[in-house]
């Protein structure tokens, strides 16, 4: 009974910090993290690793749309999707559609998702990534570029598992970037 109010208070304080830090979201950091994610996506690997490797760009986009929805947005997702399409050698717009879906889910749920800590967010992230993979699979099958395979769902699973680490890392960098003296 005693712990509840204190934790609530702590949460309120955190939330306040969150709100204030929103004013100081820096676009270069967002772009830089997306470029880093793209770099991770480009790393060479064999087929087994490839079928479990998460889509880092998707996870990074998800993070920014949940924690900084004002600074990122649909157009950023669309442009990174087009770039990923070129890298993936898929049809133009396929990945863009997937990333827009992710962004849409994030923009709808971000208030609710921020109520939980990063580990509690995993199931929701998992569902969003699973939906994204399904969109990818359906568009790919409709366009006739590849036959469907259930193993593709592993990537969303691994994406959900790396989510807390990405979120903690990016939050730490973001908080560090904000100069506390300015507040």
């Amino acid at each position, binding site marked *: 009974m005693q712990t509840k109010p204190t934790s609530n208070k702590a949460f309120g304080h955190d939330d306040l910090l969150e709100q204030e830090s929103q004013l100081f979201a820096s676009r270069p950091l967002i772009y830089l993290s997306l*470029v880093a994610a*793209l*770099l*991770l*996506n*480009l*790393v*060479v*690997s*064999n*087929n087994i690793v*490839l*079928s479990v*490797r998460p*889509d880092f760009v998707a996870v990074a986009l998800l993070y920014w749309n949940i924690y900084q929805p*004002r600074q990122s*947005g*649909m*157009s950023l*997702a*669309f442009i990174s*999707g*087009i*770039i*990923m399409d*070129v*890298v*993936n*050698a*898929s*049809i*133009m*717009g*396929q990945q*863009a*559609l997937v990333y*827009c*879906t992710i*962004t*849409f889910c994030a*923009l*709808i749920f971000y208030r609710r998702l921020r109520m939980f800590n990063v580990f509690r967010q995993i199931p929701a992230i998992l569902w969003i990534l699973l939906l994204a993979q399904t969109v*990818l699979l359906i*568009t*790919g099958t409709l*366009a*006739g*570029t*590849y*036959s*469907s*395979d259930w*193993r*593709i769902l592993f990537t969303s699973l691994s994406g959900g598992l790396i989510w807390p680490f990405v979120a903690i890392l990016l939050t730490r960098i973001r908080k560090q970037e904000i100069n506390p003296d300015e507040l």
Partner: protein
Amino acid sequence: MYTSPRFFASGPSPLTRFFLYALLSVLLMIADKHTDQFSELRRVIGLAVSPLQKSAYAPFQFYHQLGQYLASFDLIEEIEQLKQEHLRNQHELYQLRTLANENRHLRALLGATEQSQFRTVLAEIMSTPRNPFNRKIVLNKGSSSGIREGHIVIDNLGVIGQVTRIYPLTAEVTLITDKGHTVPVKIARNAINTVISGAGRNHELELQFLSVNTDVQPGDLLVTSGIGGVYPPGLPVGRVTHIEHDKSMQFSRIICTPVAGVDRHRHVLVLIDLPPETTPSAEKTDLTDSHANQANQQ
């Protein structure tokens, strides 16, 4: 009618924006599937991304170089072996050269068309696209090295695929296992001409539309037939592994495995066809173009 003023001007709602962008991407997909208008845009983005690709690849290159330094002990032995092999091959090469000369001479006598000559470019597999079911790879050489769309990519064992998209510094190769990629082949044992197509899965090719009574056996080697003019004749493509006769079907289901190992090698050869010394037949170039386009669209 009174509507409450909005506290924060945040533009259209997420749903509206999502619909707009989804519509845009779907239109883009349809346009890209049916036309060739975005190849320039692709080229520009590809060029912009290529430094990133190179830097993502750099640690692996460094690791391999390090490995080569450390493995110098094995190398001495390997060099010795290779020298012997080279000597043996040298002898065969001389024989081959005389045969080729003789062949050209005989062909000239017969008045047959000159077979096209090839120059090879050694390239490294730089990255495989993220989706493992998208059967494509990216090489670290592009149009600056003379590679063009439609060129054939092989390794030391056989055909890997065909260059389908070209950037200044990189090239995109569609593998023969890609769904919808077809190669004209013949069975090496009895020279039956047919067409082999990818199944869209790893290590799997399909021989379609061969009737049940065709003479095909497990273990048969399939080599390119040279029909169509895109693939030079005689390159190994696959080996028959599994034949399924279904009484109710007119055709038998024949599964093959590709001979070349894309997963195993880093180095591949791109065959660049030089224009034949004699008058090039217009028909042939035309065919090449149409094939390249076809592969491109697929």
